[in-house]
């Protein structure tokens, strides 16, 4: 009996072959080829040219810096808004939680183009926001929110906020509320309790959320395209242009690799961080 059970489980493993094989062929392989192609000169030989070109041009440094800067700002804002939201959600009644889920997931299901388009309408000089600001007398002239970083950040936060809130919410729900009560009975003020108990325990969710948002913000293309146009160059925009308009394969693949490296770095760093955090906090709820 034991041997058939054993072979049954090892036979089950073969079920993964189609899926894994597909991704190997269609995802991993092309990426490897891309990496190789970035080292390939026009004639077909090996060259560092693509990278030296890229790194020596100070404009590129600006582009990479812009991309990272915007990603940091967006991630920071999402964290600032998303963290209290996630905890507030975890503390309310179930119907309110359900409503909040809806408010977060509906936009997710709608798609980035519709959302970006919506913000182009809202943020225009003669759009609703400026309308309200002017009629309330807060400003005299319309505030320029489109085609600059402000509008981009607002739209990006709108698109990415659910990806910050939901992981933190998952973790917040698991934090036993008795722990905060215990901290209070031990004499900790609410601030002390937050810093020493709540925040450390919520870190896995925070790391996940930040990794998602940062990596998506770094590689976003549609949102800047609609909200900021050509004025603000991000790495994805430049990469797309290199392929689609300039047909510069080598420059394009170099930038693609740089973008890929950033993404891989984020994934690896967040995974390691999460693993370390989880090792520290093995059972998220103690006995009983």
């Amino acid at each position, binding site marked *: 009996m034991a041997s058939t059970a054993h072979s049954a489980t090892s036979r089950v493993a073969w079920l993964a072959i189609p899926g894994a094989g597909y991704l190997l062929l269609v995802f991993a392989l092309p990426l490897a080829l891309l990496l190789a192609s970035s080292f390939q000169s026009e004639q077909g030989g090996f060259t560092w040219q693509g990278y030296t070109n890229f790194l020596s041009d100070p404009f590129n440094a600006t582009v990479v810096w812009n991309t990272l800067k915007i990603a940091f700002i967006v991630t920071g804002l999402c964290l600032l808004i998303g963290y209290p939201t996630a905890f507030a959600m975890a503390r309310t009644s179930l119907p309110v939680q359900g409503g909040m889920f809806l408010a977060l997931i509906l936009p997710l299901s709608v798609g980035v183009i519709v959302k970006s388009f919506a913000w182009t309408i809202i943020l225009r000089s003669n759009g609703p926001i400026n309308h309200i600001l002017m009629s309330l007398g807060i400003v005299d002239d319309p505030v320029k929110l489109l085609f600059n970083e402000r509008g981009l950040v607002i739209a990006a936060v709108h698109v990415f906020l659910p990806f910050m809130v939901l992981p933190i919410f998952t973790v917040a729900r698991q934090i*036993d509320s008795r722990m905060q*009560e*215990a901290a209070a*009975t031990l*004499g*900790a003020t609410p601030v002390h309790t937050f810093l020493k108990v709540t925040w450390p325990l919520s870190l896995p969710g925070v790391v996940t959320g930040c990794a998602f948002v940062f990596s998506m913000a770094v590689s976003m293309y549609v949102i800047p395209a609609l909200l900021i146009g050509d004025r603000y160059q991000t790495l994805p925009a430049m990469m797309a242009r290199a392929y689609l308009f300039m047909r510069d394969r080598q420059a394009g693949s170099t930038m693609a690799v740089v973008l890929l490296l950033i993404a891989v770095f984020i994934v690896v760093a967040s995974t390691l961080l999460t693993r370390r955090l989880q090792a520290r906090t*093995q059972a998220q709820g*103690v*006995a009983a």
Partner: protein
Amino acid sequence: MGGALGSRDGAVSSLLLSGIVKRYGTQAVVDGLDFSIRSGEFVSLLGPSGCGKTTLLRIIAGLIACDAGRVVVGDTDVTKLPAHRRNIGVVFQSYALFPHLTVGENIAFGLKAHGVQGTELAAGVSQALKAVQLSALADRPISALSGGQQQRVAVARAIATRPRLILLDEPLSALDRKLRETMQIELRQMLRDAGMTAIFVTHDQEEALVMSDRIAVMNHGRIEQFDAPDTIYARPSTPFALNFVGLSSQWHGEVSRVSDTLLTVQTDCGTIDAPLAALPDATPGARVLVGVRPEMIEIKHLETSLAPLDAVPRNRLAVTVGETVFLGSRRLVYFQSQQVGANAVMAEVATNQSVATAPGDQLQLSWPVGHTLVYPMSASH
């Protein structure tokens, strides 16, 4: 920063609750409760779930606010103080240990919150660890501990800040039976040595009997009886207390006669006498509930003549044996009851007792009249 660390000079506090009211919606979970315990006392709040004992505990700790009434610890009125300023230790049912900190860090948490640092901090932590006999485990993560160890860490953490009063919410319910029995005695000793005033919340009457100096039996937000364990056991003041603490045989009946010293009650199973002192204002015709503790009952064969000329008056009832439950050192013999309703009739005898008890046997029960308990019953019962 929390309230000043108390009890440095060894003085622990008494507790006074007056007029505590707590409503959830229209329902009063605690309704005008008065309660006071002496410094250094161990008291249990004993009752079924929903009786309000946990609510009361949380009100004392300051985790929820009462709608009316006062909470006074020692000579300080803490009613308006938030939990982190009361310096009342709490051991939660699920322990609520911080999973991201080690044992030592958990224990140090309260001391740090009070601003204690350096050598004083280390001394406080090692003292608490010593008190619960876990000195070797200071650097362990919480997830590596057994249930019993976690419970001790929870206690150590609560006593480390030398609170004036310590509250324990079903502290042993998560442990298995054997461990629970050992811990009951150890915990009591730990708290005594630490010189604490302690309140336990429990639904386990055996635990309350073992651990407390006095027990408050709670029902529907009120305290029905507040006495030493032996008093509550021997003289429960209400049918609820009778039922909740210990076992008993019970009969419904009507008072048929009241004399100078005795009440006579007519039941479906026979006549039962009780001392008048058990219900002094009884009148003939009143409906009552009569009870007696099972270990007071002797089982005899039907033909056995009533006792040697005993000065002690005894009650006698003829019964038919139902089931016998073997409990190790004693047996609990259940008798078929002719009365309507669920009240069981049982007697407790030592295992080596000589009278055989097979189902269907006709025997007689006998117990001293003085141990009979009587309670008035309203018509709805």
